């Protein structure tokens, strides 16, 4: 079994307000986990904290990745170590094309390994981009567009998965990648993710709905509510949630404060 992402008793606050209240979760390479839960339960917070978003304050617990506690690491270091987040709301950056951005990201990896590295050649990079864009049925003109600038919701999500395909992480977190995608786009994007699946990749699929899980089939399903994982199980748990909704979760785990 490959290296793992291990979250231990993680507590997180935003602007002094506690959001995550003791999260435990382990995702190993080769596994696919789903994290479900009603809006506002803290799923995106967890995703952002895993990559080190400075807007969130970790007040307790540990994040272990490949055997190291990464809490003190900057986001770029975590990324180069093999963590990836497909954002729920990707920001747009004018002036930086998708292609240039990805080349810089690849070169940052090569330079971190070998400070003398000249980076990926333009030819190799072009080939890589084309192959991955074709896999996601993206028009090649996307490469020359400014990062997420003027992209539709669905285009942004596709561009996120393109980045994942190019950067080849060992653990990827997909935060509501299904939202904003119509059924065709969802199928294409899911197939793309499935092609990347393998013993070297662990995936945490964050979603509100069962829908995407028909395409990206998880081995483990977790339910988050009010900053904690309140239930874990197999794929059947997702189906149960689909039928009954989140009300039973709310009723059973409503915290009285």
């Amino acid at each position, binding site marked *: 079994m490959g290296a793992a992402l291990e979250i231990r008793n993680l507590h997180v606050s935003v602007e002094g307000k506690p959001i995550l209240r003791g999260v435990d979760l382990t995702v190993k390479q080769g596994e696919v986990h789903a994290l479900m839960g009603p809006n506002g339960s803290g799923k995106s917070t967890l995703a952002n904290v895993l990559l080190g978003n400075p807007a969130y304050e970790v007040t307790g617990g540990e994040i272990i990745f490949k055997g190291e506690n990464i809490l003190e690491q900057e986001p770029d270091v975590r990324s180069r170590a093999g963590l990836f987040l497909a954002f729920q709301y*990707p920001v747009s950056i004018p*002036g930086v094309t998708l292609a240039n*951005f990805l080349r810089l990201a690849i070169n*940052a990896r090569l330079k971190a390994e070998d400070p003398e590295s000249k980076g990926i050649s333009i030819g190799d990079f072009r080939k890589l981009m084309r192959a991955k864009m074709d896999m996601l049925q993206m028009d090649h003109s996307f490469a020359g567009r*400014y990062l997420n600038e003027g992209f539709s919701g669905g285009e942004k999500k596709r561009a996120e998965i393109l980045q994942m395909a190019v950067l080849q992480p060992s653990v990827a977190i997909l935060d509501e990648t299904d939202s904003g995608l119509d059924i065709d786009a969802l199928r294409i994007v899911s197939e793309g993710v499935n092609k990347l699946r393998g013993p070297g990749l662990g995936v945490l699929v964050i979603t509100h709905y069962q829908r995407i899980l028909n395409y990206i089939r998880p081995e483990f399903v977790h339910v988050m509510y009010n900053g904690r994982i309140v239930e874990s199980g197999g794929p059947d748990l997702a189906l149960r949630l689909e039928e009954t909704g989140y009300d039973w979760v709310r009723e059973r785990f409503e915290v009285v404060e």
Partner: protein
Amino acid sequence: MVAVTRRRPTAPDAPSYSRADIEALSEKLKEPTWLRDSRLAAWELYEELPMPDRALEEWRRTDYRSLRWDEAGRMSASLDSRLTAIPAANREPLAGEEQGGFLAFINGEVVHSEAADSLSRQGIVFTDLSTACRLHEDLVRPNLMTRAVKPGEGKFAALHAALWTHGAFVYVPRGTAAELPIHIVMYNDQPGATLGHVLVIVEDGAQATVLVDYLSAQAQSQSVYVGATELLVGSGANLRYVSLQDWDRQMFEFSYQRARVGRDAALDWVIGTMGSRFVKSFIEVELDGTGANVQVSGMFFADKGQFFDLDTQQNHNAPLTTSNLLFKGAAKDTARSLWQGMIKSLPDMQKIDGFQACRNLVLSDEARMDAIPGLEIEADDVRCTHAATFGTLEEQPVFYLMSRGIPRDQAELMVAEGFFEELLERIPFERVQARLRASLEAKIIGSR
């Protein structure tokens, strides 16, 4: 305790030029009498006007008392400089393989003057201003500091009119579209005083694109530049004008830049301010003709101890005129910037659309940026709006880039460049965009 008496702040020093200096300069440049007389008339005005100090509203926040005239005011000596002394990036053609019109000065001396055949065949005059005064009196005399920048508007305008050392003259006759861009470089590699002038006349229905670079080599002592730019855009004419300033950090710049825009004419003006220790610049557009349309784009980036004071004014002197001004600036270290904008209209000028905005990116706790918009509108069927915003570098885009493995320095650079991008793209030459990006990068990464 020793009692301290508060004194009035000391007034700024004045330079010690004399009437004899004006006469000597005019003599050296072998100027016609009319020009010599106009210089001397300006000198009289100069002597009557006070050095501007903080008692004047336009100078209230502007302090240039660290300027040492004895050092900075010395007129630059001619040194037989060569074109190749100018950095290569500023000498290369703006687009394509060959220069269109290219005029270069070093320390106020012409070192290169070239106009492609196609320009001269079109009847376009492109030469240095001294030559133009001698050979084209009919074109220059009625327009030089009579219509746009006038000697009486301030001490430095009068000083410029009396003592300008060099200049460029562009004349595009009626109905002619200049096929090639015109490039002017004013470069200094010696400290001291230079007073440069640019006069551009684009007659009715004519079109031109002009780019001016101001820059200087790193110097050990102070310099001063007292400049004037006059853009005369005739009815139905179209002028794209780009001026980029990257003086060294010992430069004090005082400049007046004014455009007059005729009926149904268009002016697209891009201004980049990167260099100098101190800048006080007046940038004004006069929308004189019905249907005139002006876009002014300003980029500035102040770092270390730089001080930039940019005064802009959009005067709607005719109905159905449109002006759109956007300045974007950044300041870091202990730098200071100030933008003061004004939109004015004459009474009863209807259907006026004026916009002014200054967006400020504050990159350090010790930097200070001010932006003061203003409106003086005396008509009612108008749409005039203004905006001033201030912000620090947004953390979420930086995080996004870092989450893909890009180190913080580089991520911040990319986000800051993104802030300027919409204005950079308004420069119609990719090579020029590239060198401006490079100087932004140097500033952003610079003093880490």
